[in-house]
């Protein structure tokens, strides 16, 4: 017997043993995934769907040939459980594991790579053998900012998520400090939860949920009721909230490509109005969502008739200007400037656009640029008093700033000036500067020598 055959047979023996002793863990009980626990877990907790799980594993084919191992890479393998990121056998198998557990899985091709195989390593219709160690797991950080952590109690159906503007029917329970403050069934439009005293974090999380999904959401203050709190529910400012949400059903809003220009224009008028209502109520994040829709619908629309195009332009202009205003209020000045730039792209001498960009720049301490903007405003409309007073503020701030700088840097400037004078004409680029350093080193060597 050759060694190859030996390992092959050994593999087969192992496989047979596994198949015999393994527990069938498929929901259909079709023996497609069999599991043997090699070492029980250290804790009783199992990962929930959507959790980020950390595992070490190695995988073998039926002939015993190893095709993959995370230990060879010296890195634990990380994936989101139950999301179809990995082969079916893994989504099923890892969900049954406890923290610290080591188990073996036998996976039939229907639960692995099927008849297509996976070039170049996994042949067609291959049964795969894995040994997996569950190292750790944690809740899913929906926006990678720690603001919303989700743990899924029951997985939803399919892959479809409500989009912005979708109508959703949910059951929710809100908790704060161990107290339940809200419990009801409610139907609303994603992005407009505020109308129903639902914090923005729920709107955002819903866009990542599926029909029939039941999950727990841990909301940071900025995704909760924020600085304003919610007196109605007895929630103080900057409170952290926990919600349990069940998405019963939803109807998606049409995607941009599904609408023709006429429909987009009609809807633009509606969402513009909605945005304005939110804005007046001080709900700027919600207003941004509404105005943002106009941009997503009309920004890239081609082939319009002249009158349509005019209408679209005026909606876009209004949307950009209002977005800029919202971002100013939300203190997202860079975005505010971007929106103004787009508005000014449509209308170079737009008074509001120039004024708001000036404001944003002033707040970012870009005094020169802000000054420029306010001056342009006055060129367009010499009567604009607000711009005049902003100009005065600009001047004042520039002066204050300069003076402070002068105080702080007084000594430094002197030193810099001296050095600049020395190096003048030598250094331009980085490399030139280095060269200059070299030369200087040379000089010092020489002069030191002379001294």
């Amino acid at each position, binding site marked *: 017997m050759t060694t190859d055959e030996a390992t092959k047979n050994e593999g087969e023996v192992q496989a047979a043993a596994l198949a015999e002793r393994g527990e069938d863990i498929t929901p259909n009980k079709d023996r497609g995934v069999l599991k043997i626990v090699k070492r029980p877990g250290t804790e009783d907790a199992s990962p929930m769907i959507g959790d980020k799980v950390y595992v070490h594993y190695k995988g073998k084919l039926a002939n015993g040939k190893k095709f993959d191992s995370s230990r060879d*890479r010296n890195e634990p393998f990380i994936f989101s459980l139950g999301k*179809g990121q990995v082969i079916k056998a893994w989504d099923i198998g890892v969900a049954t594991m406890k923290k610290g557990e080591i188990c073996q899985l036998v996976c039939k091709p229907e639960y692995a790579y099927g008849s297509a195989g996976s070039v170049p390593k996994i042949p067609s219709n291959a049964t795969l053998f894995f040994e997996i160690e569950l190292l750790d797991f944690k809740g899913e950080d929906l926006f990678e900012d720690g603001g919303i952590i989700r743990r899924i109690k029951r997985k939803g159906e*399919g892959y479809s998520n409500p989009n912005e503007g979708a109508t959703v029917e949910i059951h929710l329970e809100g908790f704060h400090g161990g107290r339940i403050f809200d419990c009801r069934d409610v139907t609303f439009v994603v992005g407009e939860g505020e109308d129903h005293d639902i914090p923005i974090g729920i709107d955002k999380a819903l866009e990542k949920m599926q029909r029939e999904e039941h999950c727990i959401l841990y909301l940071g203050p900025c995704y909760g009721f924020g600085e304003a709190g919610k007196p109605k529910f007895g929630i103080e400012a900057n409170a952290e909230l926990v919600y349990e949400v069940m998405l019963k059903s939803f109807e998606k809003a049409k995607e941009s490509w599904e609408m023709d220009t006429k429909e987009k224009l009609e809807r633009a008028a509606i969402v513009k109005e909605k945005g304005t209502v939110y804005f007046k109520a001080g709900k700027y994040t919600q207003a941004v969502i509404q105005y943002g829709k106009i941009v997503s619908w009309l920004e890239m629309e081609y082939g319009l008739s002249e009158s349509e195009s005019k209408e679209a332009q005026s909606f876009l202009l209004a949307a950009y200007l209002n977005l800029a205003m919202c971002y100013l209020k939300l203190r997202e000045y860079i975005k505010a400037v971007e929106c103004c730039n787009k508005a000014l792209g449509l209308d170079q001498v737009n008074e509001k656009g120039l004024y708001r960009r000036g404001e944003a720049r002033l707040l970012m301490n870009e005094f020169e640029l802000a000054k420029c903007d306010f001056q342009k405003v006055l060129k367009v409309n010499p009567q604009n008093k607000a711009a005049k007073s902003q100009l005065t503020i600009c001047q004042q701030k520039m002066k204050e700033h300069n003076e402070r700088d002068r105080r702080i840097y007084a000594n430094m400037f002197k030193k810099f000036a001296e050095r600049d004078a020395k190096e003048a004409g030598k250094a331009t680029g980085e490399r030139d500067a280095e060269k200059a350093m070299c030369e200087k080193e040379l000089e010092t060597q020489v002069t030191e020598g002379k001294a």
Partner: protein
Amino acid sequence: MATEELEAIIQRCQILEEEDFKGEDFNLFQVACQKCLEEGYAVKVLEVFKNEKNKVIVKNMGWNLVCPLVRCILSYNLEDEKREHCLSILDKLVQLCNPKELLLGLLEQIEQASGEQISQTILLLLQPLQTVLLKFHSKKSYSVGLSLSTILNQLSLLPVPYTKEQIQEDKLGLCKCCSAVVGFAKPFVDQVVQSVEASTESDVRELKEELLKFCLKSLKYPLLIAQLDQLHEDVEEDPLRHFATEILDILINIGELMPIMFSHRGSRNQNWNNPHFLDMDRKHSADSLACLSYLVFVQYFGIDCFPMVFSPSYLLQCNMTHIEVLLKRTEESVLTKGLDLLGNCLLRNGDNSLHHQYLEFKGFITTPQDLVKVMTLCPIEHLRKKSLKILQLYIDKFDAEGKYTLFRCLLTTSNHSGVEGYVIQNIKNQIDLSLKKANGCKWFTGPHLVSLLDLVLLLPEGSETDLLQNSDRIMASLNLLRYLVIKDNEYDNQIGIWTELNKIEQNFLKPLHTGLNMSKTHYEAEIKSKKENRRVAHNSQTVCSVTVGGEKMPNMTTEMQLQVLHSALFTFDLIESVLARVEELIEVKIKNVTDKNIGGHVKHLMS
């Protein structure tokens, strides 16, 4: 005489201690050396350099002498012994001089080279550059990075050889430089690999960062542009493929392959977190990452290090971003990469296995539109064909609802009669499949299908539609209608066509009749007037002009115009005959139903 001048300076300087040198001594020495070199007395300079006694003055001349030296070396023939002398001088410089100064001198030479000298200079100076860099003890990463990026910037000026012959000839030396630069980077890679355990050390981390940037830059150019298909029989000898494997090896060895392949997914390990990389402009790395994905999945470079547990649909989803990047380009080799990567990812999935909701993921609905663009606008035939093949593959992989959505999307966005015809043909196939199944799929029978047919069985601009332009679409629609009329049993109306006849009549058949009549009259009149014109003015020069791609085509003679007009008439006839056939079928079937109803009615009355 130059040699004598040099001799004189040397005589004077040899007795001085380092600190006694004056600035002018250096100047004089430099001028004298340069002169010697220019006048062909390299051997004399070499002699001076070899002399231990001159070590002190030589030590400080690195930066100044590199330029004239390189110029000399490049001007001599390979066999010239003077070249050998110059090379020995260069060696001496590298041995003796201040490395920091020398580094700048060498990089300056590489940077200043142009045309054919780019590769010559790089090949000449890589070795000395490496030696110099290895002399840096700590803080070398910045210099290594600077060197690598300078070299790649220069290489990016060289066109990538394309055909086998071009690669073999390697006229501008790109291939040679690529393999040389890998050798150049090797000791630094080794250093990173050896100190993996102590990777907290900031210098090693920085060096790794620089090597990563180098790899990404190489992926963007030349690898993205290079034709890496296994076109050539002796694949192993393709130097650019070889370069690609080397770059992948570096990425694997420094442990960065997995992290960067997942860098855009946001699901990265803490250990993988790499703030410097995040700082790098992601837009710039999009091309590199797309090329990397191609190399891993299509060419299997480094696939051994890739986890084999991802689901095929997830791999498709991950690669969609890259595919989008590649398909937006116009270069043949880049488009090929995009199509190959998409094809590869699709083939990993079973037919009908992709859930329609995947179409909601980023890129899934826009990519087929990009394929259509390639199919209709790309000037390269084999890419147009490949793109069509892959579009079909794409359609095949989705479930029925996914196919349905794709068809809707393609019909509304493609703006190309041929593509629309193709999609309509696909719709027909799906209806056919659905009818063959015991309980047909709800997307290709009944109300859903009817709403899809609303997009098909109409003339886009009513009777005003340009029938010639739209002939592919119209013919496909008529064929589909004919199929439906034959297949759909008029009694149980399974597909749902019979209740829709009125609408079809209004939106499609009637305007088509009108359109055909108008077009035919118009073209016939045109032919008539052309013929008369020909009789009147025999010199058929006053004709229309055609421009294609901004270039004026030769004028069409009246004969040619007549030919075109006739072929248009032929198309109309063809449409008309199919139309007639369809209407005939409809009539017969409707008559059957009414007859039977009347018959039944009569029978009922009689009983």
